[in-house]
């Protein structure tokens, strides 16, 4: 009950932050607000017991991406360009998509429903056997690292590649800036 109220309040703050992000034109404040947005998201994950996702959100959302976005701002512009076209059509598209998504969730099982299909397939086996198989206290860890080990390896490879790509982009931009400056002088 209490947790539900807290959830609602957190969602409220989340929506407010999102609106603020959309409204702002100065990119520094957008970066700060995005950091706060991800803090709020992680809090919501914690209230839903998704501890590992909250971990990831904390490390990536609040920490690294803030720094990356600041680095990007340093290379590019500090203000968002004012929109040149009217926003009616994009808003319409977004609203329809959102409505469709909300309609889709009506068919989804309730949060934490023990009879949801996802809970009935292999989940019970994992829950029953993981401590014996792996001797680890945390089931999520053993699923991620062993039962779904190849998935995790793939994910890690993707994230690693993305990280290298971002670093290359930023350093390439910085190098070009410097060269241009030198040519000007």
């Amino acid at each position, binding site marked *: 009950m*209490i947790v539900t109220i807290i959830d609602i309040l957190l969602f409220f703050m989340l929506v407010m932050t999102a609106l*603020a992000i959309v409204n702002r034109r100065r990119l520094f404040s957008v970066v700060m607000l995005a950091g706060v947005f991800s803090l709020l998201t992680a809090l919501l994950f914690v209230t839903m017991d998704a501890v590992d996702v909250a971990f990831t959100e904390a490390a990536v959302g*609040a920490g690294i991406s803030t720094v990356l976005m600041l680095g990007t701002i*340093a290379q590019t512009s500090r203000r968002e360009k004012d929109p040149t076209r009217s926003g009616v059509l994009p808003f319409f598209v977004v609203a329809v998509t959102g409505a469709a998504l909300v309609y889709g969730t009506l068919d989804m099982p309730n949060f934490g429903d023990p009879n949801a299909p996802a809970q009935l397939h292999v989940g019970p086996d994992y829950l029953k056997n993981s401590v014996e198989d792996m001797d680890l206290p945390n089931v999520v860890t053993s699923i991620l690292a062993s039962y779904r080990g190849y998935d995790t390896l793939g994910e890690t490879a993707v994230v690693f590649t993305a990280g290298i790509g971002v670093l290359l982009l930023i350093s390439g931009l910085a190098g070009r800036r410097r060269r241009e400056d030198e040519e000007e002088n």
Partner: protein
Amino acid sequence: MMFVVAAFALIVAMVCLLVRLYVGPTVYDRVLASNAFGTQTVLFIGVLGFLTGRPDFLDIALLYALINFIGTIAVLKFFRYGSMGDVVKRPAKSEGE
């Protein structure tokens, strides 16, 4: 029960900080507010752990404390030594690095 009170106190504080984060005239106001927001989040995770009867969540709170500090310091380093972060009027591009 007492943790409910603490949770709501933290939420009220967070809303205040959000307003400051939105209004805050200078960049540093925003950094300050978001740092305080991070501290509040750490405390909130701790309180939530007690509220749901599973204080194991404290690991995340610890991680948050670390990330928040590192993030704040990184941002400030950027403002201080990067080619940006001017509050006063100054040429947009700082003269050659």
